[in-house]
C-alpha cells in the first residue's frame, strides 16, 4: 500500500523508460499517452539531472500521440498506428520504442497488436507498457530494458569471453551516468575487456543489437536492472552478477579483482592497472594531506540518495576518507524484498562504522528521522554529530544548513551546476569526489 510522497525524487515508470531510450543514440521514443507526459517527464529528468537537456529527438521533439478525450472514449490504436508510420517516415532512427502512459494502459489500448503489425513488416519497432502508476523511474527502465532484450537484441550462439554489458544505470536518476559509464569502460578496457555501455552519446546502436554476445552482464545495483538481467540470461544465455557501484580506490580495487577472477584475466595485468590507478589517486591526494589532517576534515557523514549511491558513497567515506557514516536515507520506492537486499549490503560494513539506515521518500521526514536519531545521544553543548557533512541532493541543502553541516550534491535532483562528463566511479572518480567534497569545506575562504 503506497502513501503520498513529498517532492518525489524520480519520475514515473513512463519517465524511466523515456530517459533510457533518450540516452540511446539512434533510438527514439514514441509516447502513446495524453499530451503532457513526454515533455513533463523529460523536463523533470533533465532539469534535475544537472540540466542534461535535449538531444535531437527528445524534449519537445519527442514523438507523441497526444491523445485527448475522443481517443479515451473510442480508443487510441488507430492514432498510434498513424503516428508510428509517420515517425518512421520523418525521423531518422534505428530503433523506435513505443511506450505508454497511465491513460492508455487504463483504457486498454492493445498497443502490442498495433506494434506487431509493424514488426511483421520488418520495422525496428518495440513496445513496453509503462503506465505511470506502475511504479517509479527505475520500474519503467526495467520494463523498457525487458522489451529491448526480448524484442530487439539479435540472437547469437557465440559468446565473446572478453565482452561484458554494464547495466543498472537509469539516466538522470544517476545524474553522472554518462561519465560513470565511460570511466567503467576505460577501466575495464585496461584489463582487455570490452564493456558495452549503451547509454552514453558515443555508443553505437549496433553494439546494443549485438549485445547478446557478451559473456557476462554486470548490474551495478542490487535492485535496479536485475529483472531485465534475469530475462537476458533466460533468453540469451548470458549470466549476470550484481556489483555495488565502485566509488573510490577501495571499492574499485575490489571490483576489479572480482572481475578478473570471473573472466579469468591475467593477474599481472591487474597488478599493473591497480598500481597505476592507485598511484594516480594518491599522487594527487597525498600532497593535500596537510590540509586534510591539520584542518581535521574528518566528518560524521549523512548520506541521502538512491539504493545505488547511498551504499557506494557510504563505503567511500568510510573506507577511503576515514569518515564516520552516521545516518543514511535511501529515497527509492522499494518493496520489502528490495529493502532487505539493500540492508544486507550495509551489513557488510564493519559494525563500528555501520550507519543507521532508513528507507524514506519524503525530504521532511528524513530530517525528522535524523533529528530523532540525534536526540538519542547526549551532547550537552551541541549536536552529537558535529562536525557533520551531508552528501545528498539539492533538496537536502536545508537539512545540511540546519545541522550546520558541509554539503555536496550528488543525488538527483541537482540544479546548482551542470553535469557533463563528471563521474565518481573508480579510482579517478574517487579523486573527483574527494576533491569536490573537500573543496566545499574551503569554499568560503
Amino acid at each position, binding site marked *: 500500500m503506497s502513501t503520498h510522497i513529498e517532492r518525489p*525524487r524520480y519520475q*514515473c515508470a513512463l519517465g524511466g523508460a523515456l530517459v533510457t531510450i533518450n540516452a540511446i543514440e539512434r533510438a527514439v521514443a514514441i509516447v502513446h499517452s495524453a*499530451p503532457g507526459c513526454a515533455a513533463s517527464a523529460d523536463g523533470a529528468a533533465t532539469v534535475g539531472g544537472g540540466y542534461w537537456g535535449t538531444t535531437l529527438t527528445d524534449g519537445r521533439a519527442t514523438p*507523441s500521440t497526444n491523445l485527448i478525450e475522443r481517443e479515451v472514449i473510442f480508443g487510441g490504436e488507430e492514432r498510434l498506428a498513424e503516428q508510428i508510420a509517420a515517425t518512421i517516415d520523418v525521423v*531518422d532512427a534505428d530503433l523506435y520504442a513505443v511506450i505508454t502512459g*497511465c*491513460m492508455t494502459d487504463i483504457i486498454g489500448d492493445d498497443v502490442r497488436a498495433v506494434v506487431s503489425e509493424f514488426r511483421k513488416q520488418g520495422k525496428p519497432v518495440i513496445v513496453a507498457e509503462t503506465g505511470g502508476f506502475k511504479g517509479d523511474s527505475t520500474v519503467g527502465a526495467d520494463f523498457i530494458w525487458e522489451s529491448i532484450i526480448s524484442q530487439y537484441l539479435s540472437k547469437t550462439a557465440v559468446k565473446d569471453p572478453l565482452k561484458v554489458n554494464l547495466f543498472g544505470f537509469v539516466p538522470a536518476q544517476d545524474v553522472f551516468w554518462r561519465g560513470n559509464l565511460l570511466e567503467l569502460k576505460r577501466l575495464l578496457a585496461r584489463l582487455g575487456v570490452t564493456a558495452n555501455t549503451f547509454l552514453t552519446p558515443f555508443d553505437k546502436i549496433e553494439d546494443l543489437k549485438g549485445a547478446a554476445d557478451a559473456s557476462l552482464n554486470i548490474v551495478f545495483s542490487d535492485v535496479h536492472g536485475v529483472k531485465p538481467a534475469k530475462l537476458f540470461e533466460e533468453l540469451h544465455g548470458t549470466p549476470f552478477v550484481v556489483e555495488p557501484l565502485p566509488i573510490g580506490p577501495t571499492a574499485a580495487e575490489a571490483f576489479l579483482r572480482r572481475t578478473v577472477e570471473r573472466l579469468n584475466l591475467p593477474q599481472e595485468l591487474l597488478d599493473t592497472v591497480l598500481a597505476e590507478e592507485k598511484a594516480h589517486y594518491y599522487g594527487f591526494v597525498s600532497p593535500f594531506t596537510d590540509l586534510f589532517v591539520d584542518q581535521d576534515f574528518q566528518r560524521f557523514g549523512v548520506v541521502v540518495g538512491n539504493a545505488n549511491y547511498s551504499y557506494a558513497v557510504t563505503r567511500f567515506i568510510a573506507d577511503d576518507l576515514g569518515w564516520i557514516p552516521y545516518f543514511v536515507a535511501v529515497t527509492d520506492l522499494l518493496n520489502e524484498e528490495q529493502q532487505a537486499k539493500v540492508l544486507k549490503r550495509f551489513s557488510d560494513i564493519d559494525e563500528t562504522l555501520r550507519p543507521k539506515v532508513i528507507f524514506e521518500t519524503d525530504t521532511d521526514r528524513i530530517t525528522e528521522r535524523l533529528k530523532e536519531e540525534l536526540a538519542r545521544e547526549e551532547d550537552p553543548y551541541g549536536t552529537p554529530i558535529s562536525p557533520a557533512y551531508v552528501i545528498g541532493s539539492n533538496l537536502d541543502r536545508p537539512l545540511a544548513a540546519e545541522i550546520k553541516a558541509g554539503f555536496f550534491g550528488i543525488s538527483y535532483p541537482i540544479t546548482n551546476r551542470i553535469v557533463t562528463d563528471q563521474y565518481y566511479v573508480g579510482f579517478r572518480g574517487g579523486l573527483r569526489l574527494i576533491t569536490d567534497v573537500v573543496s566545499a569545506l574551503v569554499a568560503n575562504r
Partner: protein
Amino acid sequence: MGLKDDKIVPGREERVLACMAHGGCASGMGKQDKVCLKNNERSFSQAGLCQLLPTLGMLLTLPETAVVVHGAIGCGSTGFGMNTAIRLHHLLRGNPNAKDSLWFCTNLDESDVVHGGEQRLEETILTVAEKYAPKSIIVLQTCTPSIIGDDLVGVIEKVRPQIDIPLLYSHCEGFKTKVWATGYDVAFYAIVHGFIEKDKEGPPKRKAPRKPEDRPVVNVINLASMGKPDEIELERLLNALGIDVVIGPNFADRETVRRMTQADLTVSVCPTHDDYLVDYLHKEYGIPFVLKDMPIGLANTRSWLLDIARHFGLEEKALKLVEEEEAKARRAVERYLPALKGVRVFLSAGEFRAVVTGGLFQELGMEIVGLRSYHHDDFGTEFYQQLVAAQKGKDFPVDIANFQPFELVNLLKKVDPDLFCGHVYDNGWAAKLGYPTITIFRIFDHYVGYRGFYEVAKKAVRNLRNSAFNKKLSQNVGEAYRPDWYAKSPFAYIKSDAVEPLPDPATAAA
C-alpha cells in the same frame, strides 16, 4: 457560464475556438472557418504540454502554499522544472529566505487504479494541513484519477470544513484539451474559488463606486512569464499617472487576491491569458477592464497606457508621459538602429507574445520573416494584419503549433532568418541550426514598456554581434529528420478533421 458558474473549466478549443494546428501566412490569419480550424490535428506530432504544467506553474507561485498533485508519481514530479524558477522569482522579489516550493503526490499505484484514490487524497490533504501548516492547499487532479472516476469536488467539499486554511482545487487532466493555455483558466478558477467564492469569510462585498478625489486602483494581472523587473516598469508608469496598482494573482497571497475585487479597473498584460478572470471580475464586481493590449513595443505601450488613463480622465497626463518616455527611449536605442536595420527575424512564443514582440522589432527597423505561435484564437487575428501592414504588405509564413519542433526547423531552413526570438525550449532548435537567438522573455530581464524596448534592442545587438557558440554548434550536431522532410511543406502533417462544420441555426430551425 463563466468562471463563477462553470463546474469544469471548458477547454479553450471550445470556449474561444482556439486552434493549435495550422500553417499559412499572416495575411490569411482569421479568414479560415473557425470550427474547421479548431478541429485540425496532426498525423505526426511531437510532445506538447498539458494543462497541468501551466496550472502548476501559476499555483506554485502563491506564497507558502502546499500543492497536492492527485495522480501517479510522474505528474507529481514535474514540480522540479518549476521549483528553481519560482525560488529565483522569490529572490528577485527581495525575499532572501526563499525556500523550495512544497508539493506532494498522492502516488496512485496499480491497486489504487482499481480501488479508487479518493481516500488517499483525503488523507493526504488532512496530513499536509496538520503537519506543514501552509497558508493554503491546492489540489490538482490529473488524468488517472479522472479516468477511474475519483470525485475531486466531493473530496474537497468533505475536507473543507475540517481545515482552517483556504483549499483550492483544479481539474487539469491532460487529455481534456488540446490547448494547454486552458491551464491558465484552470489556475484562475482555483484561485478565485479558493480565496474568494468558497473562502470561509465568503466573497468580499462589492465596493462603492470610486469618488473622483480617490486615487484610482488598477489590477494588473501578471503572468508567470513576467518577472519583477517588468512589474516594476509597469508600476512606475501607472504610479506616474497617480494610479495605484495591485499585482496578482501570481505571487499574491489571499489578501491581495481578495483586494483585486475592490479595484476600479482590471488591466491585462496579455489578453489571451486573462480573459476568463477579467470577465469574472467584471460580472461579479462590476470592474471594467482593458483587455486588448500587451505593453511591448512603443505603440502597444502607448495604447495600453492611454486605454487605462481614459477610464479616469487622465488622458492628457498620460499623453504627456508617453511623449516623454518615447522620446527618451528612441534617443536611447538610436545607437543600436544601424546594427538592427533590415535584420530579418523569426518569432516563436504564445500567441500574443510572439505577435506583439514582432511589432517591437518592426519599430526597431527589423522585418518579420516568420512566426510560430502555440495556439491561435481571435484575440490575435487583427495583430497579424497590423504586422503585415507595418512592413508594407510583406507577408510571412505562420505556423500555429503546440511546439512541434519538426515543423519549426523545416520552416527555419526555408525562411533562413538573421535572428530567432523564441520561448524557452524553442531557441535551442534555432541555435543548433546556427542562427543567433534571443529569448522572448526571461523573468530576470526587461521586456515591457520603455525600459523593455531599450533592453530588447540592446540584447538583440549583443547577440547578433557574436553568435560563435551557435554557429560552431551547428557544424557539430547531427540531424534528427530524414533529408526528404525538408523538401516537404512544414505543414504536411496537419490534417483537417472530418467533422462537418455546424449547421447555420437559421436553416436548422426552418
